[in-house]
């Protein structure tokens, strides 16, 4: 019943391709009927020729045959076309639906599936479903129909002799089924091994410098050989079993032949051709071939569908996933100001977590304030700020922006007012200007340049050969880490937000530029509330207030001076860095592209 459920969910994506989807089986039926009749007509023709009839009689049957095969061709052609249209169209709609569904996902939905698995579902899985769909509407109709039609014709021509098929078909059927049952687990076990091997190839290409540095070429080759050998063993075993299908099929075919020859010849001779004549006799053999190859087809379909059922299940999961964050019913579109209030906020990523990530946070930030956040890895700095633009929802208490609960706002309006530069940030393929305009697609060139100046990105952009029209490669691989961070800040600034959150966004930028960016923001967007998460105390030293987070709790709040006096954690971090800097005698860190 799980299976039916999957079909019910996925079939919603057929939509405008319903017509070809329904037409295909109809055309297939037409094709099969004529295909079954043609051998019969041929038998008639052969009999005419053998009987030495004149050209007239021959031509008579010839014309019928020509017309029949043309009609059959037409049906076959149409079925092929509508089938391609239906299956490719269905796959297109399915990809569309899955992709759009993912766009509705909240952060926690994305976390649940992981990006890599979503990509696989959208690509490989849907590809498999398309193949299966094509099989279902065409081959899965054709094979059983062919089987029935051929059997009926065989019975019509050979009479009780056709009953041999009632013996052979189950034998072949059971044989094919057994082969499929035995090989499927082997293939299932083999494919992950195959993936693992490919991953190890990728790992080696990526790490070729390490391999060569440690002179591990032979070691890696031996390791690869073991993996490759394992795969060879599994797949050879599976294919050898699968290869039994051919001889099995042949054996059944031969048995039918021998049976028909011995019994049939006796029948012809003893009844003097009344029960069956020679033309019918040889046609019977044609039908037997068709019957058996239909069975072969059926077993293939069985395997294909079983395999793709797993893909279909995975795709269904995405389609049925409900976004954990949705718009309220009567959303508020106006965000008054950039004030933020955390009232007894608790948060955890999953319901069955042992301990919440944030506990009882109470915090009030005035509009226009600059807030620094400091804390070690795992102190939940990012988790705290992600609640503000509602990337995640609180599990207890409430977060307010402009005096109202974030859950009462329209999501788009809220996120337009709260700009966030993520820690793990990405640029998209396209020009620099296009990337910046993510913040506001209608921004003028001047506005784009202005935000780049504020983010200290204008200098390096101007030095690039194509300036703002320089193409960014997928993943932003052709700009350095520091450059990328500055572009991401510029992109967020273009939104002219009421609240700007920088989540460790200047880590690869040198301290001097870092300071300059903060100065620019103080000068040009004084009324924007700024929240800066950083590893370096120098990045937050000049903030109005600094929050020290420890283990999901606020350890202290205050200015840098106050905290230096009163807070142990802040003091430790501060001195560990200032000690270093005193040695350097200057607050400069050379920064470098992550090559």
């Amino acid at each position, binding site marked *: 019943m799980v299976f039916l459920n999957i079909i019910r969910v996925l079939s919603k994506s057929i939509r405008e391709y319903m017509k070809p989807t329904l037409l295909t089986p109809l055309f297939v039926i037409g094709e099969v009927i004529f295909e079954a009749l043609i051998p019969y007509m041929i038998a008639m023709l*052969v009999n005419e020729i053998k009987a030495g009839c004149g050209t007239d009689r021959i031509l008579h049957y010839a014309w019928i045959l020509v017309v029949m095969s043309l009609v059959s061709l037409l049906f*076959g052609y149409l079925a092929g076309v509508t089938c391609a249209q239906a299956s490719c169209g269905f796959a297109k709609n399915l990809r569309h639906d899955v992709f759009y569904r993912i766009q509705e996902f909240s952060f926690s939905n994305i976390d649940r599936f992981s990006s890599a698995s979503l990509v696989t579902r959208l690509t490989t899985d849907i590809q498999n479903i398309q193949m299966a769909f094509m099989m279902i509407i065409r081959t899965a109709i054709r094979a059983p129909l062919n089987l029935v039609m051929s059997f009926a014709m065989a019975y019509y021509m050979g009479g009780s002799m056709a009953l041999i098929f009632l013996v052979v078909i189950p034998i072949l059927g059971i044989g094919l089924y057994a082969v499929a049952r035995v090989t499927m687990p082997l293939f299932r076990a083999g494919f992950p091994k195959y993936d693992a091997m490919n991953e190890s190839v990728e790992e080696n290409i990526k790490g070729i410098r390490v391999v*060569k*540095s440690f002179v591990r070429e*032979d070691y890696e080759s031996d390791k690869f050989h073991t993996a490759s050998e394992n795969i060879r063993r599994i*797949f050879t075993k599976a294919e050898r079993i699968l290869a039994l299908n051919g001889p099995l099929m042949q054996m059944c075919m031969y048995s039918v032949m021998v049976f028909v020859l011995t019994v049939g010849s006796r029948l012809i001779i003893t009844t003097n051709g009344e029960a069956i004549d020679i033309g019918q006799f040889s046609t019977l053999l044609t039908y037997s071939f068709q019957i058996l190859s239909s069975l072969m087809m059926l077993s293939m379909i069985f395997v294909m569908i079983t395999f793709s059922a797993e893909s279909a299940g995975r795709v269904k999961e995405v389609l049925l996933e409900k976004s954990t964050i949705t718009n309220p019913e009567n959303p508020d579109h106006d965000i008054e100001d950039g004030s933020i209030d955390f009232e007894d906020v608790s948060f955890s990523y999953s319901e069955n977590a042992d301990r919440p990530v944030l506990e009882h946070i109470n915090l009030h930030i005035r509009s226009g304030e600059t807030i620094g956040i400091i804390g070690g890895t795992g102190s939940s700095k990012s988790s705290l700020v992600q609640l503000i633009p509602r990337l995640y929802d609180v599990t207890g208490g409430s977060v307010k922006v402009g005096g109202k609960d974030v859950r009462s706002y329209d999501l788009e309006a809220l996120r337009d007012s709260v700009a966030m530069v993520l820690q793990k940030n990405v640029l998209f393929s396209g020009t620099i200007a296009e990337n910046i305009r993510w913040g506001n697609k209608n921004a003028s060139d001047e506005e784009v340049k202005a935000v780049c100046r504020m983010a200290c990105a204008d200098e390096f952009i101007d030095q690039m050969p194509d300036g703002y029209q320089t193409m960014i490669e997928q993943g932003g691989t052709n700009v350095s880490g520091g450059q990328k961070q500055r572009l991401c800040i510029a992109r967020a600034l273009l939104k002219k937000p009421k609240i700007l959150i920088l989540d460790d966004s200047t880590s690869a930028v040198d301290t001097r530029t870092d300071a300059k960016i903060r100065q620019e923001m103080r000068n040009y967007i004084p009324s924007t509330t700024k929240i800066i998460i950083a590893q370096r105390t120098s990045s937050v030293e000049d903030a109005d207030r600094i929050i020290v987070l420890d283990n999901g709790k606020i350890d202290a709040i205050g200015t840098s001076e106050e905290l230096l006096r009163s807070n142990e954690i802040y003091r430790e971090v501060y001195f560990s860095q200032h000690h270093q800097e005193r040695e350097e005698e200057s607050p400069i860190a050379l920064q470098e592209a992550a090559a």
Partner: protein
Amino acid sequence: MSQNKTLKYSKGTVKRLLKMIYDFFPRLLPLIVVLILINAVISAMPSVFMQKVIAVIQDAWENHLSWEEAKPRIYSNVGVLVGLYICSLIAGFAFNQLMAILTQGTLARLRDTMFRHMESLPIAYFDRHKRGDIMSYYTNDVDAMRQMISQSFPQLLVSLISITTILCIMMYYSIWMGLVIVLGSMVSVIITRVVGGKSAYYFMAQQKYVAAAEGVVEEMINGGKVIKVFNHEEEAEEAFDAANEELFQAAYNANRYSNTLMPILNNVSYLIYVLVAVTGGLLIEHNVTNVSFSGLPISIAVVVPFLGMSRQFAGMIQQISPQINSIVMGLAGAERIFAMLDEEPETDNGYVTLVHATEKNGVLEETDERTELYAWKHPHQADGTITYAKVRGDIRFFDVDFAYVPGKTILHNITLYGKPGQKIAFVGATGAGKTTITNLINRFYDLEDGKIRYDDININKIKKSALRKSLGIILQETVLFTGTVMENIRYGRLDATDEECIAAAKLAGADSFIRHLPQGYQTMLDGDGSNLSQGQCQLLAIARAAVADPPVMIMDEATSSIDTRTEQIVQRGMDALMAGRTVFVIAHRLSTVKNSNVILVLDHGRVIERGTHDELIAKKGQYYQLYTGAFELE
């Protein structure tokens, strides 16, 4: 068009492929070919005996023979037939089994060959080729070859044999009738070429659009969180829809052609059948003189077998046609794989090797045991003597020029002295050539001009494996391998004991976090170390280098942000590892540079300043400006 191109230069590829399979399986391949031949012949025979049985029946029927009279003749023929069937089954079974072994065996050995060869290729190859492209040799291309080897080739061979046999039989009976079938079949072949060619063309196009759509999907899914933060869902959907629509068009075209080929061929074969029947009838009626090797006149006895043969002929073509796609794709894949196998491996003319040694009275002696002392083993070709020299870690550059592409010199006149135990730091902007210099020391690339001497030996004379074993390296981006933590540390030296690995981890400062992992040193890591933090990955890389214990270290400092405490631990690990070795550091933080013996400031591939920290500060040049923040490198 692409099909023609492929077919044109694929003759060499087919030959090479067959040669390769033969080299892998010198006995199995001929055996399989023989089996195919036997199989083809045997499967042609039953129809002969069936004809005989039918002739007997006909004879019995026309002459009103009783069943008892006809029975011996029928049974003797059926008996032979059963014998043939059994032979055919045995041959078929053997062929199928052996083919499975041959196919998987060939693929496995091909993959091994590819991998081994890939490992031998110079770094430049990996610079020139995208990771995804190399990957697809192992995945798509090998897959395409599987289909070709296991099905298309044998099918083609069987069909060719059968077609030849049938052609001969046709010539024996009647050349006229044969011509009708041959001409009819030509039509089928042309249809196959046109429709099949189109289909192959669109399938290749589909591959392209699949890749394009996957690119969009990957970018949009991986950037999913940024899309949400910027309310950019609609734009993402637009970009996706465009790629999706293109993919649909290509897929539709490809499948449309491949779906319709079979019904067309099938029905065309019926038309040919009719044509043969009608021609036969007309020939008989008009008493046309037959031309044949048998000299038989045209009669029903001649025409009837032709009807059967026409079906057989058509069947052959139908069997071959689906193979065309897979052959085109398979050969294209084989060609790409062969191109990779034809890449020149790294050349190594070095002959100086690295050995362990013991020192007795100032004389070095080679030993198999692991000692504290490394020595260069230097065989002299002139007089056949062997000399040993202590590995001290003295590395000097003399006027080195380097170009990735001939003519485009990247490094100019680099001269530097790294004396044993010294720390040499490189400072400069992205693209100034810092990493390139270190890549020359371990001979990832070869010089254009000048030379590098290692303990007074030209590094070209040192075997690459020996050279690299004497150099430890920590890359900017840490690469770990799928396996346990212990295995990853042991990567530095394969014969290191568990205790030695743990000692190295302790030295690097990695021991404490490793012990906190769920399975300690036996915790499995993903290839990309995604279950560890960046800082932890770096610590493992340091431990890995520590286990190797080389006299010279090259360190490319990581730039990525790790929290302050981890950074301190990493720094301590690095310091511990550097002690007592010659070290080349590519610095991104001036704090690491300060205590270097020499600092080289690079700009556009030239050394523009050199000296100690104090000297350079006193000089008030570029370094001073960098240091005081008056000048930004980027």
